[in-house]
């Protein structure tokens, strides 16, 4: 018996989803839907845009205006949509590879513009759909199908990157802490500007198996244990921070929003008439 949430916001006939057993993507997707529900947004005013990869398949399951784009380009398509129709709540679903490798340039520029798009970054530290290659967030030394001897690349902190690039709202949650994640997404949607909510999730099929991280349940426990709320994080020294990451609202500042600034230019011509 599907829940009311599924009846109201999912395309029931498109389920079951393609995600592997133990994958956290379903939880993150549910948190997005719960956030939309809690905010009482009209489904017709919500536009979900995704790129390519496991997480990006979420758009097809959700009953909104949905767009499944090309690899890495979700934010670029979303920018066109938001700019053309600022009334829409534009939510981008993307993965760590999609968002920060092939789509890295679009990410930093969407942040810089502070355009009112809410981006939910499903971070499972691996390219899942193509079979477990290392991504820009795979921890250094960890293995992937293209890092058989351990990943040499240093990994990205995408929240820091987004903040440095100009995003006005940056937060990190986890698939374990689904209720907190929902709240962070709600705040991100409410923020008039670019919001990045990184959702730490787990890929037991590829990342977990390659790196001997144990069962899906075990991986979820690791996510839980690694997450430190930001107030506590500040009190930790470098050694204590090893293997852990900070969660919660990391940055929240008020800045001019892009489409509003452009609307002022349009309005200035109307006055002349």
């Amino acid at each position, binding site marked *: 018996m599907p829940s009311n949430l599924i009846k109201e916001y999912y*395309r029931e006939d*498109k389920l079951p989803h393609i995600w592997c057993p133990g994958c956290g993507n379903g939880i993150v997707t549910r948190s997005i839907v719960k956030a939309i529900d809690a905010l009482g947004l009209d*489904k*017709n*005013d919500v*536009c979900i*845009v995704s790129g390519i990869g496991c997480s990006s398949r979420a*758009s*097809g399951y959700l*009953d*909104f*205006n*949905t*767009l*499944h*784009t*090309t690899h890495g*380009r979700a*934010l*670029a*398509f*979303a*920018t*066109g*949509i938001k*700019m*053309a*129709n600022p*009334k*829409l709540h534009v939510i981008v679903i993307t993965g760590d590879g999609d968002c920060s490798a092939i789509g890295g*340039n*679009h990410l*930093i*520029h969407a942040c810089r513009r502070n355009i009112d798009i809410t981006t939910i970054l499903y971070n499972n530290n691996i390219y899942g759909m193509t079979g477990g290659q290392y991504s820009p967030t795979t921890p250094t030394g960890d293995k992937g199908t293209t890092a058989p001897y351990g990943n040499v690349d240093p990994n990205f902190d995408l929240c820091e990157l987004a903040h440095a690039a100009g995003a006005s709202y940056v937060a990190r949650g986890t698939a374990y802490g689904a209720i907190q994640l929902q709240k962070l997404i709600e705040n991100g949607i409410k923020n008039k500007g670019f919001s990045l909510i990184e959702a730490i999730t787990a890929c037991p099929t590829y990342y977990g198996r390659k790196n001997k991280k144990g069962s899906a349940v075990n991986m979820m426990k690791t996510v839980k244990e690694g997450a430190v709320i930001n107030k506590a994080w500040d009190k930790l020294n470098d050694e204590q921070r090893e293997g852990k990451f900070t969660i919660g609202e990391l940055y929240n500042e008020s800045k001019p929003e892009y489409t509003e600034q*452009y609307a002022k*230019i*349009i309005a200035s*011509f*109307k006055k002349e008439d």
Partner: protein
Amino acid sequence: MTIKLMQGNEACVEGALRAGMRFYAGYPITPSTEIAEISSIKLPKLGGKFIQMEDEISGMAATIGASLTGLKSMTATSGPGFSLKQENLGFAVIGEIPCVIVNVQRGGPSTGLPTAPAQGDIMQARWGTHGDHAIIALYPNSVREIYDTTIRAFNLAEKYRTPVILLLDEVIGHMREKIEIPEDSEVDIINRKKPTCPPEEYKAYELKEGDFVPEMAPFGAGYRYHVTGLVHDETGFPAGADKAEDLLNRLISKIEDNVDDICTYEEYMLEDADTAIVTFGCTSRSAKSAIKSLRKEGYKVGMFRPITIWPSPEKQLIELSKKVKRIVVVEMNAGQYFLEVDRISGKNTIVEKYGRLNGEIITPDEIISVIKEGHNA
């Protein structure tokens, strides 16, 4: 009718605005930059939007995104930028998203000759994106024709729910000519068909009887649907390989079955010609001048100029091949459109190519000697 002195790139923007363009996203690249610059000045005055994106790829993506909200959208680029747009151009093809992509050509490959004219993107316009597909590409040869053809590009994009490529030559894009701007009443504007059914009955990619494209609802109008670059069925959702053939054949045939509506061309002094020059864009102007001189000397030469370069005006080229003894394809590349003309006309008549790659336009004198040489041979 208003008479104005106008640059080709400017005429492109003016035509686009007349057609109803209200969104432009792009990335600056020579020799197309004036299209972005003028759009940035004019669009907000009309309540439209201009955005300079971070790269060519995002320029194409944002153009598609805006079109999905219902705005007529355009992007412009040149050489290397056109290459970068190709993946998302394919997305617009399979997703049936109307938009106009202007390519003011420059020499290539790679950075090539940034400020010099070339006609080397004929095949890239046709086959630049991956996979099997049909495409519409238009190729005007004067500032006035850029104005008209840009309007037509939008009309075809809306009518056939497809990206339309507008190929321009650098020399015409940057040239200034006196043009007559037609009255509103003289200009036909086509807008995409929107659904009239209730949202719950709407299938985003369902073909209604008698239609060749599905009705298109703008995002945000209450018709919640899914758009994907994957092979999809009439609901818009991903479908298996068994649907691929149906979908791709429909996308190809909506254009190929309507070639007579899509194809425009110019025939010049072909009535009694034994030799035909096939050419387009700026080279057609040299050809016309060459033909005038050659005619004075008694040579029976004429010109066939495709304005719609893709799909090919196959019927007309076959007819031509049966009429003339010799066709010379004149183009500023190493023989790209020659391949197409030879494929179509080669079995009936001699098809030759004449090209150049040094970033200089082909002059009437050159064409005159090419025609004379062949004539004497």
